[in-house]
């Protein structure tokens, strides 16, 4: 159990700076997800916390103690790797007990702890197998078991589910969540999958190009994205983001089509401001097939021509043209649509976002 604190943490490879002085406070027992596209520096940051990469600048504190120059073994952390990183020549039991053995623990003390962890992860029947005899999901569970037997201060997960198929990923995601509820320790979890981040984390850290774009709870980053990048990254399918200009109380798109300026932004933008208009698919739906969250007055209606549909069973994603660009909307209680059909659509503008086109930051207060 420990807090982790990153203070102006920098990673440089020669002249190339990968992580640009990031600050982050992780509370004790908190589940933090670092998320971002590949190359954003999230894995590098995790590896600096683990001690696998030297820190080029700033301070890293675990449990209030500066650990910059401590080797990984002195940090009391465990890590779960994307490629499982099991020891191929050891059985599951030996893999899980290895860190305890290295710590000089006696085998009669190790055995109950390994068995306890194996029970938690439903690995008891596999204890005498070798990693090569296990499936991907089982291997990753062993890797998790190896991490929990040590009772570390901090768990680090480096894209642990990325090598698994979709079904297994969902299943293990739930297991990780249960595991965290049970062991109650600080977790830092790196993933490029925003769904994983949203479902697991107490707070999400969205990274981009070695900077932190936003830190917040899943609700915050979804509902109040601090930037165009966060808005586009969180949520599936991604938010509709269209370049526009403010003119005369309206948001005017490049081809001249327009929408009313959402009331929330009325006194925040002036005419001529170049913006990016954002609307989630949930807030663009065929009339009668969606729910608006604000007042009726904030719902703008327009006829749109359907170009393509993606039925998902309980809902259908509807792609249509507006303002010279393609928008995706979400149709609840769907009926079958024909391509080329024109329908009345609702734009729930109470949920719309405006971002500065240059800086990408939100224009909301």
């Amino acid at each position: 159990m420990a807090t982790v604190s990153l203070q102006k943490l920098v990673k440089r490879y020669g002249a190339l700076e990968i992580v640009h002085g990031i600050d982050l406070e992780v509370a004790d027992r908190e589940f933090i997800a670092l998320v971002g596209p590949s190359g954003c520096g999230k894995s590098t940051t995790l590896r600096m916390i683990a001690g696998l990469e030297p820190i080029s600048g700033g301070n890293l504190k675990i449990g209030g103690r500066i650990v910059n120059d401590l080797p990984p073994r002195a940090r009391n952390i465990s890590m779960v790797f994307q490629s499982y990183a099991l020891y191929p020549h050891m059985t599951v039991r030996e893999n899980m007990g290895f860190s305890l053995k290295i710590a000089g623990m006696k085998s009669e003390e190790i055995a109950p702890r390994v068995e306890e962890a194996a029970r938690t992860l439903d690995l008891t029947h596999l204890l005498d197998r070798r990693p090569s005899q296990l499936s991907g999901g089982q291997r990753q569970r062993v890797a998790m078991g190896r991490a929990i037997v040590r009772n570390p201060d901090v768990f680090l997960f480096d894209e642990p589910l990325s090598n698994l198929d979709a079904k297994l990923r969902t299943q293990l995601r739930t297991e990780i969540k249960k595991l965290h509820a049970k062991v109650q320790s600080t977790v830092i979890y790196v993933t490029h999958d925003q769904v994983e981040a949203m479902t697991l984390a107490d707070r999400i850290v969205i990274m981009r190009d070695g900077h932190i774009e936003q830190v917040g709870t899943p609700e915050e980053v979804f509902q109040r994205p601090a930037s165009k990048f966060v808005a586009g990254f969180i949520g599936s399918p991604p938010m509709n983001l269209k370049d526009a200009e403010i003119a005369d109380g309206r948001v005017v798109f490049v081809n001249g089509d327009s929408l009313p300026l959402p009331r929330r932004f009325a006194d925040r933008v002036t005419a001529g401001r170049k913006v990016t208009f954002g609307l989630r698919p949930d807030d663009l739906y065929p009339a009668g097939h969606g729910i608006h969250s604000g007042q009726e007055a904030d719902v703008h209606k327009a006829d749109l021509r359907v170009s393509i549909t993606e039925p998902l069973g309980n809902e259908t994603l509807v792609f249509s043209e507006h303002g010279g660009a393609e928008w995706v909307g979400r149709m609840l209680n769907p009926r079958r649509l024909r391509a080329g059909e024109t329908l009345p659509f609702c734009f729930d503008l109470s949920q719309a976002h405006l971002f500065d086109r240059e800086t990408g930051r939100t224009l909301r207060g």
Partner: protein
Amino acid sequence: MGALKRLRPSTPFLLLLPAIVVLAAVVVVPLLLSFYSSFTPFRLTQPASLFNFVGFRNYGRILTDVEFWTAFGRTVLLLTVALNAEMLLGLGLAMLVEKATAGQRLLRTIMMFPMMFSPILVGFQFKFMFNDNIGLINNALQSLGLTDQAIPWLIDGTLAFWAIVVAEVWSSTSIFAILILAGLLAMPKEPIEAARVDGCTPWQTFRYVTWPFVMPFAYIAMTIRSLDVARAYDIVKIMTDGGPAKRTELLWTLISRTAYADARMGLANAMAYFAIFLSILFTVYFFRKLAAARTQIGAEW
């Protein structure tokens, strides 16, 4: 008709016949002939002696021959010493080269230089270096003031054995280095990182993670080199020719002396079958080790 058909050899056999004939001519017949001759007092100078069958007399003589067993033991000793030294040095070299961030290809090439020389030339070179009068080594030792006398490297029996070990090790350490390096390069890096996080010191990481992975590669090198050293002849022939006073006599120098200098081919053949038996023993041993090590790391090759 039916009887004729039965006499006719099957097509697969006919198709294999050319290969069988060639193999028989170059392998089976000479092998049988040499094996047969080990039961005769065959001398190259007296061809008729080939037909004088004496049963196990040659083998009986070998079993009680002190000279033979000394050479046998010395060969095993050379094998043990040289292989262990080569493995340790090769492992060290491989780990150093693996750490190199730049110029690794160049280093790998340089590392293989000793393998590019004929063992005969290596023998000559070391014979010169260990020469007690004009040799580089005595010269260096004296210039550095470490000794003021000429050390009789190739004249003292024990020293001569170690001089041969040095030459062997110099010429063949790279086999270990290359194979172990291949293992190190093929090794996934994550288990090493996992070990560091799990609390291993660099030594423990090596001991528990790196070494088990690299071990099969070391065993491959062991297998190759044990065959190599068990038939060691060239370097010894040049450096000491089994001398002084047979103090560096190995199996094959003894066998060749018996066969050609003493012209006792029958006896020499009997010794040779013992020597081959030794090689097979080592090969089987290391192959077993290799198979075990491979299963252990779950290797897919």
